[in-house]
């Protein structure tokens, strides 16, 4: 009895030491810093093990790996803060370039095709939002349904066959064809959304709606508008990401993206410190989270780990990263 009391008080004093130390203070305050450190350690490890990890070719590869997922993760963070989720965004990613393709087939210029793809994506987000908010269906269910509907739609209009991405010239380079263009898009998206989140009314109302929807309604925030708007944002970004990918690989695949990219995006967001039950999250964190996931994937590939064990190790890594994050959050709470 007395022994457990001592160990209890030891733990408390250790916790106090940990939380009052200025270095750990920094990591506890900056939710993103801890995961960034993990990323840097991983880079060092893979560089010493493979010596090509930091080569130009691999960095470009890593950027492309990261960018498409990071763009989706940035949008997904907005929904996760609201306590909502969009499972269908990976299928919007596949549909949007086909909308672009068929618009160009109808003799419209490529830029109109891109806009049409983005518009349709945003409209899907709008429908997801309206069904969720107005009909009161949990977004997990709504977007699970739309995941299948959108996938079916893509397969139907494409007949299940891939197509060559239309367009030539500078627009191709800007829209994902250039080596760094996707990463530049991702960085722009992340910074704009992070700014929206932390420095505008929209962000403040998003936190308020996710943190306490009754309280938010009480002060007069239109919580339905906030929710629907963020569904539009994530679907729009899903479409953008899909279009960028189609220019990068010069072909449009009806089976691209899907739940793989969607789950990577959500995992990245959660690893980066966004709570699945709402109220907390940063877009910068999601970018770092996605980068860490990409580093793990890329590093394992370079190390030549068998494709069969790959998911096994990846899954464990995600769990460990999330566990660390949860522990850190508990420390943060205890520190205050």
């Amino acid at each position, binding site marked *: 009895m007395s022994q457990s009391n001592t160990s209890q008080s030891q733990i408390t004093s250790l916790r106090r030491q940990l939380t009052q130390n200025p270095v750990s203070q920094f990591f506890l305050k900056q939710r993103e810093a801890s995961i960034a450190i993990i990323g840097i350690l991983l880079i060092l490890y893979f560089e010493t093990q493979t010596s090509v990890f930091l080569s130009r070719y691999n960095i470009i590869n890593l950027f492309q790996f990261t960018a498409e997922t990071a763009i989706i993760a940035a949008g997904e963070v907005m929904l996760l803060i609201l306590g909502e989720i969009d499972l269908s965004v990976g299928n919007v990613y596949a549909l949007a370039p086909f909308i672009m393709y068929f618009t160009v087939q109808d003799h419209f210029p490529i830029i109109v095709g891109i806009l049409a793809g983005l518009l349709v994506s945003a409209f899907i987000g709008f429908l997801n939002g309206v069904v969720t908010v107005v009909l009161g269906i949990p977004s997990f269910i709504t977007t699970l349904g739309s995941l299948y509907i959108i996938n079916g739609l893509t397969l139907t209009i494409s007949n299940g066959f891939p197509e060559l991405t239309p367009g030539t010239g500078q627009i191709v380079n800007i829209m994902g064809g250039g080596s760094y263009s996707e990463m530049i898009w991702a960085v722009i998206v992340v910074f704009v959304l992070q700014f929206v989140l932390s*420095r*505008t*009314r929209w962000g*403040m109302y998003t*936190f*308020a709606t*996710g*943190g*306490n929807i*009754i*309280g*938010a309604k*009480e*002060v*007069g*925030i239109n919580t339905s508008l906030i929710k629907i708007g963020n569904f539009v944002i994530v679907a729009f970004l899903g479409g953008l990401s899909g279009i960028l990918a189609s220019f990068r690989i010069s072909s449009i695949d009806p089976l691209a993206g899907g739940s793989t990219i969607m789950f990577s995006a959500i995992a990245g967001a959660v690893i980066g410190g966004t709570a699945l039950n709402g*109220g*907390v999250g940063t877009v910068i964190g999601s970018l770092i989270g996605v980068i860490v996931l990409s580093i793990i994937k890329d590093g394992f590939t370079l190390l030549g780990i068998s494709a069969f064990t790959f998911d096994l190790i990846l899954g464990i890594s995600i769990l460990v990263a999330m566990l660390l994050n949860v522990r850190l959050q508990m420390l943060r709470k205890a520190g*205050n």
Partner: protein
Amino acid sequence: MAEASASALRVEHISKNYGAVTALRDVSLGVKYGEALGLIGDNGAGKSTLIKIMTGYTAPTSGAIYVNEEQKHLHSVNYARSLGIETVYQDLAMISELSVFHNMFLKRELLIPRTPFLDNHRMKREAQEFLLTLGVKLPSVDVEVSKLSGGQRQAVAIARALFMNAKILLLDEPLAAMGAREGAAILELINNLKKKNVAIIMIGHNYAQVLEVCDRINLLQRGVITYDKIVSSNSMDELNDIIIREYRIDQKQAESSAAADGANIVH
């Protein structure tokens, strides 16, 4: 401008029926600016129904409501709020994940001129200054509300209501689940508010605390006000007598019904 003796908020002959159930029967009460009215009563006495009526959440079955001596139909919470009536519930309206100053400015944010961006510096400064004028002490207005103690949270909630131009405050159990020192700080805040001419109706069932800051006490029992007096040195004894008397009546009823049940079983 209303006279000093005029009521800020007054209800007259209020009754409220929910179907066959009578929640309030011919209730009349009023509070002036700079005065605190304590409304006490047991659970189920009708306190929350009365609050809901006074904040425009539900309409009374009969009776009249006067704000600044003018009869008003409080048809919505927003309308009541526009008249300066605000209820502060213990936790309900605060966003735990937002900072103190964001909570205080929620839905009335300051923007950097000609941009859509929040002017966090100005909001921080103004929130800090406002809290200081009320004598509310916090480590910083930058901390998340979730990291405040119950007493600090309550103080911020009250400050926010005033910041939103509330002139008539309904405080719902402001001291529930609070330690002695925290409770004392809130009582001090309420005293400050009285000096600033705010009208306060404080709802509670711990009447020792209510007596400490309130000028008048109304006791609500089974939908009827059974006691309405200015607080004096013997208020405590009087209230004790009433409560004990009621307790005895309750017990007698319980005993006799138990006896009747027992008799039924024997036969």
